[in-house]
């Protein structure tokens, strides 16, 4: 996958998003664990991940981003929402929107003291009572606002086994999944969430574009690839139905290694179309110079794309129906 085509995710977490005097080791560690590249540009990368699954921008969700002993750290709803907006509607031309947001629930606020730094890390305050009250988690407040402003933006809650109430409320608010910090399979889980929920451009570049509506269509296509046997793609001529079918083929784990066979019925008569689909023996008609298995057999374990597929259905309906039902 090209580096530029990696999904761009936003991580909102008080510990991983904070700026420190040197490198934020907590952030470096979570990047290595989740196999994500840090693109925040507030520190020099101190590790190279060979096959990253995403590029991440980290945000503390609090003011100030870099706190020292004596500073008061406060949750920053407005600033965080502005950052989300800037990577959604207000992004640079040619840049993909946030593919996904990883959101912490508990944010420690309050005064940074030598004791809090010794216990929780540089620039981390000791926390207030309301920070640990699950009904007032800052992460839930953020989640509510994100869903209100950007309902298409998938949010994965980055938290350790939340209590039942938090889990229910997060789900109601629209979180698509939970990712437990420190979980052994966290990178695999994140990869799965990216495939299933994220707004990601086509990494091959064959379907070019970063518009939110296109990325939503690609996400629907990836989901369809995982769950259905037959699929109808509708659209005007030239809108890229075959490209989308090839994208589905590439993203179908059961069929990606099989062939992609395309039959364009728009250029064939009904009889030739049937012959293309079901095959023929040598000499069956004038131009039948060799036996042909037909596209249906050739597409075994892969995908058969019937371009303009409804054109001949009327005349060959029974044949087609028997074939599809008997697959």
């Amino acid at each position: 996958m090209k580096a530029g085509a990696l999904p761009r995710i936003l991580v909102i977490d008080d510990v991983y998003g904070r700026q420190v005097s040197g490198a934020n080791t907590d952030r470096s560690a979570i990047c290595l664990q989740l196999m994500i590249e840090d693109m925040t540009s507030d520190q020099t990368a101190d590790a190279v991940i060979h096959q990253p699954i995403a590029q991440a921008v980290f945000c503390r969700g609090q003011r100030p981003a870099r706190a020292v002993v004596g500073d008061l750290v406060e949750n920053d709803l407005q600033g965080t929402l502005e950052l989300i907006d800037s990577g959604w509607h207000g992004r640079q031309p040619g840049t993909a929107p946030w593919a996904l947001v990883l959101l912490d629930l508990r944010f420690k606020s309050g005064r940074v003291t030598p004791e809090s730094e010794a216990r929780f890390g540089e620039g981390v305050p000791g926390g207030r009572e309301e920070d640990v009250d699950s009904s007032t988690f800052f992460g839930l407040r953020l989640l509510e606002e994100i869903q209100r402003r950007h309902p298409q933006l998938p949010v994965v809650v980055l938290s350790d086994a939340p209590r039942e109430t938090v889990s229910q409320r997060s789900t109601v608010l629209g979180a698509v999944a939970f990712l437990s910090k420190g979980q052994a399979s966290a990178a695999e889980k994140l990869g799965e969430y990216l495939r299933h929920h994220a707004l990601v451009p086509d990494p091959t570049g064959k379907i070019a574009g970063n518009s939110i509506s296109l990325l939503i269509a690609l996400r629907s296509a990836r989901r369809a690839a995982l769950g259905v046997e037959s699929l109808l793609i509708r659209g005007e001529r030239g809108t890229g139905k075959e490209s989308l079918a090839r994208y589905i083929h590439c993203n179908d784990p059961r069929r990606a290694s099989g062939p992609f066979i395309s039959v364009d019925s728009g250029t064939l008569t009904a009889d030739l179309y049937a012959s293309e689909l079901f095959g023929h023996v040598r000499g069956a008609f004038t131009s039948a110079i060799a036996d042909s298995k037909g596209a249906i057999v050739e597409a075994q374990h892969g995908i058969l794309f019937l371009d303009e597929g409804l054109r001949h259905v009327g005349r060959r309906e029974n044949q087609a129906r028997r074939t599809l039902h008997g697959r």
Partner: protein
Amino acid sequence: MRRALRAPLHEDAGAAIMWRRRVAEFTHDWLRNRFLPRVHAWIAITGADAEARPNLVETLVAGIREWDVRGDEALMLSEDYCEIMSPRRFIDDVAIHLPSDVGEFLRRTAFACWNARHRIDSRVEHVRSAHARVDTNFRRWNASARAHEAVIALNGVASECEALIAALSALPTTARL
């Protein structure tokens, strides 16, 4: 040192809140936020999934070795648990004066009922045994000369930490009889 790390026990309700807060600080703020990501990061580097600057590796190793300092907090939490959360403390709050032997009998009975209903002894033992398994794997990692053995040991630390967090989370935080 172990007592120094323990938070002061105030009056009972305050002590229960403080105990829950200590659990959150241990499991969420330290184990989940800091210790386990370092463990997995070290495994990724050693398993050649990533390359890191030497100073990052040193910092990760130092972070993993914090187990030596903070790992026993799990034992302290389990030791304090019965004292703080047991309903026997409610007997002391009864307004009427009780003869000392009656009071002691009621305290023991309250604890026995609570223990029997919620299998407290067994749950506390789960915390201790999970801690011991983390500790064993940690010592094995610390003593490993070969990368392969060290990765196996540290994977053991990670999975047993999950068991430790689960065991601590399974301790009832209300004292219902």
